[in-house]
């Protein structure tokens, strides 16, 4: 039996099965009238996370979140040779064999810290005498996706708490257990994993996503929160944030820019994901009432006006899942890339023809708005399937850029100029 879109067919099938296999039941009064019109499936209740998900549309029924392989790819199976960057740039594998590599941070001594969403560890990559060593510096964590680093201290964001390890680089073989800094966070699985950062104001920024695709939220969700480094003095800096998994501060203006993922199931092409800029504390960025600055949500947008919310400074593509982003303040890349935003688009799932799976660079005007954009690194998306998925970007002291790929459990390094392979 096939569970079709129309409840009628489901029920007719169920009854047919009953009649065929259970003659005793067939004689009982309720089953004696299988031809009676079955009640249609009740409409989706208002506010349901299922709103907008089409019933019985064949193309839509093929779409579900794309699950990355849990185990990392072998070093000789990485797609490095298929990845493309502009002329003059080079790509090398910085490290591999680390399951589900997500957020990246670089320590003062050059250690690269790696968070993960599906494992329980935070890893540290050390390069010494041309050799790459990967050390586990914390384990037994729950969704330690988010990392921040400042003055020798590593901050780790699990699903519902932030902890820290002081003097983390002093002895990577004997790292203290993380101590909790902040745990006043919801425990929702949906959009619960975190990206964190420390601003130029020396405060910790912690986002809390909306707990579903397209849902109204209370005052503890749908925001970017700012707290002191000891977890005190919460201020909700940005509201109407559906789910940001990447942000950074402009090197000159010090303003906060963040990526935000638009809702699913509205359509193939609308709404697009967003790149936003916070200009004052407490700004509302629209979700779940208005997306992409001009699209009133078909469910929650009634009676609302997009002009009441801060519009994005750039649209970053439908379902493209812009995640990690950083400003390039280094000097290795050509001058045109100075202070430009590099955004990792993880790539869509809620779209028939997949979109994204690349690094896009956004060039800004003097006033901090977006002037133009171009794809910087591509090749992760082949024949409508992923051979890798970029999650986060992070610049090293020498100005080279690291890219994490959670599909392969690898980190690439992008350099400019004569190829120098640091890992050999």
């Amino acid at each position, binding site marked *: 039996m096939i569970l079709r879109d129309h409840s009628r067919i489901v029920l007719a099938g169920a009854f047919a099965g009953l009649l065929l296999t259970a003659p005793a039941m067939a004689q009982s009064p309720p089953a004696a009238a299988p031809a009676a019109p079955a009640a249609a499936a009740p409409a989706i209740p208002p506010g349901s996370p299922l709103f907008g998900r089409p019933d019985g549309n064949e193309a839509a029924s093929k779409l579900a979140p794309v699950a990355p392989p849990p185990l990392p790819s072998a070093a000789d199976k990485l797609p490095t040779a298929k990845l493309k960057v502009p002329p003059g740039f080079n790509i090398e594998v910085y490290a591999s064999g680390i399951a589900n590599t997500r957020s990246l941070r670089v320590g003062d001594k050059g250690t690269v810290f790696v968070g993960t969403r599906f494992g*329980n560890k935070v890893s540290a990559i050390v390069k010494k005498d041309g050799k790459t060593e990967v050390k586990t510096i914390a384990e037994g964590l729950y969704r330690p996706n988010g990392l921040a680093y400042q003055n020798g201290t590593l901050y780790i964001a699990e699903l519902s708490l932030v902890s820290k390890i002081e003097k983390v680089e002093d002895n990577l073989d004997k790292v203290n257990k993380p101590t909790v800094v902040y745990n006043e966070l919801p425990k929702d699985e949906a959009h619960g994993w975190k990206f964190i950062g420390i601003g130029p104001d020396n405060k910790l920024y912690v986002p809390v996503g909306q707990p579903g695709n397209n849902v109204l939220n209370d005052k503890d969700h749908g925001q970017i929160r700012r707290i002191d480094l000891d977890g005190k003095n919460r201020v909700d800096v940005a509201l109407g944030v559906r789910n940001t998994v990447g942000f950074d501060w402009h090197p000159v203006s010090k303003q906060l820019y963040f990526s935000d993922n638009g809702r699913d199931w509205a359509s193939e092409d609308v709404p697009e994901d967003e790149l936003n800029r916070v200009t004052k504390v407490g700004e509302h960025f629209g979700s779940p009432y208005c997306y992409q600055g001009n699209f009133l949500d078909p469910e929650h947008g009634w009676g609302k006006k997009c002009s009441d919310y801060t519009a994005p400074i750039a649209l970053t593509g439908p379902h493209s899942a812009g995640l990690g982003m950083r400003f390039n303040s280094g000097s290795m890349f050509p001058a045109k890339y100075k202070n430009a935003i590099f955004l990792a688009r993880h790539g869509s799932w809620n779209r028939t023809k997949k979109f994204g799976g690349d690094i896009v660079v956004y060039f800004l005007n003097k006033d901090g708005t977006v002037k133009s954009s171009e794809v910087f690194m591509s090749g992760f998306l082949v024949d409508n399937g992923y051979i890798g998925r970029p999650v986060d970007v992070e610049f090293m002291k020498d100005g080279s850029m690291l890219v994490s790929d959670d599909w392969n459990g690898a980190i690439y390094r992008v350099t400019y100029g004569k190829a120098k392979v640091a890992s050999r």
Partner: protein
Amino acid sequence: MQKILKILAAASVLLCAAAASLRAQTLTERAAPCLACHGEKGVSETPDIPSLGGQPAPYLLIQLYLFREKQRKVEIMNEMTKGFTDDDLRNFSDYIAKLPPPPALADTGDPVRMQRAGALITQFRCNSCHTLTLEGRENIPRIAHQREDYLARTLHEYKTNTRHGYDGVMAEVTQSLSDAQIADMAYFMARFR
């Protein structure tokens, strides 16, 4: 009745643990303790323990990985997978994926309840990701003819954010489910034809 089930479950957990401690050579031998609880022919007869027959290998691999990493917390499974290498995870998931899918319960169910529950399956779009036949695909598990008690418990755990999946989708879609709806859905999935 509840009490008896609990005792049975506890006893079977002990049996499984005892069996697991024997280090066997071949994969078939190593998988024997798994199947002692989960059912030799893919059909679990142990209360609360899922049937594994017909599960897609990618789903099995993800679950074994989550057990090993203690992201999905079930003590005996965390213990069983503790020393597993990446290759062990791959081999076990490929091996278990070959078990035949469980059949529908012989009891075809109360037609009124089946009708009500079938409508819920459509309303909540279970038949979207899990496919029209509820057989699952890739990372999405087969829920057709799974054990009713396990299905109900799992839906409840998703609703309370205590079952830790790969992504937040199930936690999200179960938020508005009532206990009665969960019971009906599990009833339907175990029985429908």
